[in-house]
């Protein structure tokens, strides 16, 4: 056992070292394209680190959203940018050194704060004790889903509103210009992958009740299907062709979440207070619509909106 622990320890150190190097390389690289690639790799290594920290939910989300969709968004941005000069990073040495010193001070401060209490933390509280104690009354058996959709549902509801604000903000930046070249290889790929991705999204959503998964990961998979369709030449990326239906899809998650919360308040239960017996079904309903909204929001974010010309 000790040998195995030692090996894992070495692996962890390696992961952390690689993570730091990737982060520095991504920030310091003067070429945008390389910087972006390094950032995507950074996201994947970060997902591994989360997995090593026994946080599979965050690892999934990091890989799907941080590295996958984040990378796709960055690629789309870079592609729109190609006609401009690419080496415009403001890398004045004073700025760079100033930022470096500030980050060092910040890091030292955080480390100082953490090390001052770390030895005593174990005795004062155990993480998740309260969550475990109440898990049986939450309607689901996976603690992360219980926290996101029940104990701290208000945070999640507002986070969905943040997504809505983000996509409206992207629309506020102006009209969309088509920035993709349709490639035949993608349409072949799409035929195989899109149904598979939708099926996987459904599974990840359902699995969220008892094991890692849930609306955000499932939504990211749906968005992956949407992006694939867009790259394969479908101008609407599988989204409804009626505009108000798209908008309805964007608000569905937040809307149903809020209406369930207010409905329970009117029922005399209290805002977002699910009755224990029905909690599972309310959570499933909210998660399903949230998945649709998240998938549509992320796909639209990638497209920057539905292009005017192709929409006809």
């Amino acid at each position: 056992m000790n040998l195995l622990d030692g090996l894992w320890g070495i692996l962890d150190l390696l992961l952390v070292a690689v993570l730091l190097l990737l982060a520095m390389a991504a920030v310091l690289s003067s070429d945008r394209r390389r910087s972006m690639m390094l950032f995507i790799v950074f996201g994947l290594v970060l997902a591994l680190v989360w997995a090593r920290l026994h946080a599979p939910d965050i690892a999934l989300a990091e890989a799907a959203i941080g590295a996958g969709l984040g990378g796709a968004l960055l690629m789309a941005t870079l592609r729109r940018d190609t006609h401009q000069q690419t080496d415009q990073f403001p890398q004045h040495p004073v700025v760079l050194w100033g930022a470096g010193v500030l980050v060092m001070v910040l890091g030292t401060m955080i480390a100082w704060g953490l090390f001052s209490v770390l030895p005593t933390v174990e005795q004062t509280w155990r993480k998740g004790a309260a969550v475990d104690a109440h898990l049986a009354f939450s309607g689901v058996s996976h603690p992360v889903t219980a926290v996101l959709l029940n104990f701290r549902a208000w945070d999640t509801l507002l986070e969905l509103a943040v997504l809505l604000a983000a996509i409206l903000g992207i629309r506020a930046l102006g009209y969309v210009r088509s920035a993709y070249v349709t490639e035949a290889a993608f349409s072949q790929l799409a035929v195989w992958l899109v149904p598979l991705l939708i099926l996987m999204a459904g599974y990840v959503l359902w699995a969220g009740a008892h094991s890692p998964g849930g609306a955000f990961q499932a939504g990211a998979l749906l968005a992956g299907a949407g992006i694939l369709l867009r790259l394969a030449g479908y101008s609407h990326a599988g989204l409804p062709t009626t505009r108000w239906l798209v908008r309805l899809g964007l608000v569905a998650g937040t809307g149903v979440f809020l209406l369930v919360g207010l409905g329970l308040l009117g029922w005399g239960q209290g805002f977002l207070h699910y009755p224990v017996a029905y909690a599972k079904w309310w959570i499933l309903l909210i998660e399903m619509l949230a998945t649709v909204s998240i998938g549509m929001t992320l796909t639209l974010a990638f497209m920057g909106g539905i292009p005017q010309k192709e929409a006809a």
Partner: protein
Amino acid sequence: MNEAASVVWVISLPLLGALLATVWRQRAATIGWISSALTAGCAVWLLWVVQHAGVQQLALGGWEIGLGISLYADGLAAVMVLMSSLVVLGCSVYARQYFRAQRQHELFWPLWLLLATALNALFLAGDLFNVYVTLELLGISASALTALGAKRAALRAALRYLVVGLLGSMLYLMAITLLYAAYGTLNAVQIAEALQVNPLGWAALLLMLAGLALKMALFPLHFWLPPAHSNAPAPVSAALSALVVKAAFYLVVRLWFEVFAPLTTPLLANVLGALGAMAVLWGSWSALRAERLKLLAAYSSVAQLGYLVMFFPLLMVLEGEARHWLFGAMVLFALSHAFAKSALFLAAGILMQYAGHDRIRELSGTTQALPLTTFVIALAGIALVGLPPSGAFLGKWYLLDAAFKTGQWWWVLVLVAGSLLATAYVFRLLGHAFGHLPAVKRPIVAATQEMPALALALLATFGLGLGAMSLWSWLAHTGTGAGL
């Protein structure tokens, strides 16, 4: 319906409005102002509830505090919600006319109502992580609204605003991570009870102060504010200057006086006060030199936020009744600035629609053409300088009084210099506006645009000045422990 429901409704109504306005685009403006009006009504109800039934604490989902999230409404929170809802209502009535026949209006309304949601949710949050989520919603909707200015300068300002806002949120989030690692809870009251004086507490306090100082544009971190606030559409500028920076200030007050009370020292308060003093001098000086009315208003916001921070070192040394009065004066000053500054930005918007520009030197004839708008500018100016009977006058009076009582006379010098500079920039503006032109046609300005501006300006001057006494009794409704 039970009393605690008022807390839920002031947040849910604008959110419902935002969702409806997204889907039903043709009716977005109607949905917008109706839900703002209903929210304002609920805000009055909430204040009434807090005054008659005491502090409201609502455990969402029925979970025990620490596991679930709680909403917390005491006198201060209810007053801030009412302030924000009234300003949002005024701007909504104005925006109906302002955005008429403009492409942006369909994106304006959902984002605008999300901004209102974020503000009310922030004022009522009782949980430090929930505050982070509301800060995110606030920052993203605010910068998206800035981008609606559509000009290149507006887009650049919006992007910088977004990045600065995210940086501030990240610093705040790091502080929460530290606190959660040490105490295992995110609830503000529980953290306040458990907080110990140790390096971790210091690190958390400094990180939060740095993040929020960036968001409230405290000197020298104000660099992003003038371009963002002066390039946004008029109703957006009004809300950004009046409310969004005020939300960060509200958090600093809560954290400083309630959550981190054992850690705060007079030395740190004096550092903050000194930054505030520099903000007053630099902001007022830049406002005096500004060539454009909206830029003047934006720099004046930097100065006014400086005054608010100058209350801190004095509040640290005062105790009991005197402290209660000074604290109320600080809140009164914040409210007065919110109403006056939003009125000023709305008036500037009317001017820009009429003249096509807001260059101060070329405003001659404004008084003849737009008498009511000029009156609004004058009223707002009275509140910005701090002349009686405005709320800012009482605020400055108590600040002066406290500075003499505690022997910290140097703040008085800043106060006098700042007020003189403010007088100069307000009268410079009015001097140009009163310039006489031989023949000016009276333009047709919709009353729905001038009236909300006038109402807000009147609130800042006569409303708050003459009705200030009830504020102190509202603020007396605070919880036994620390709330947030």
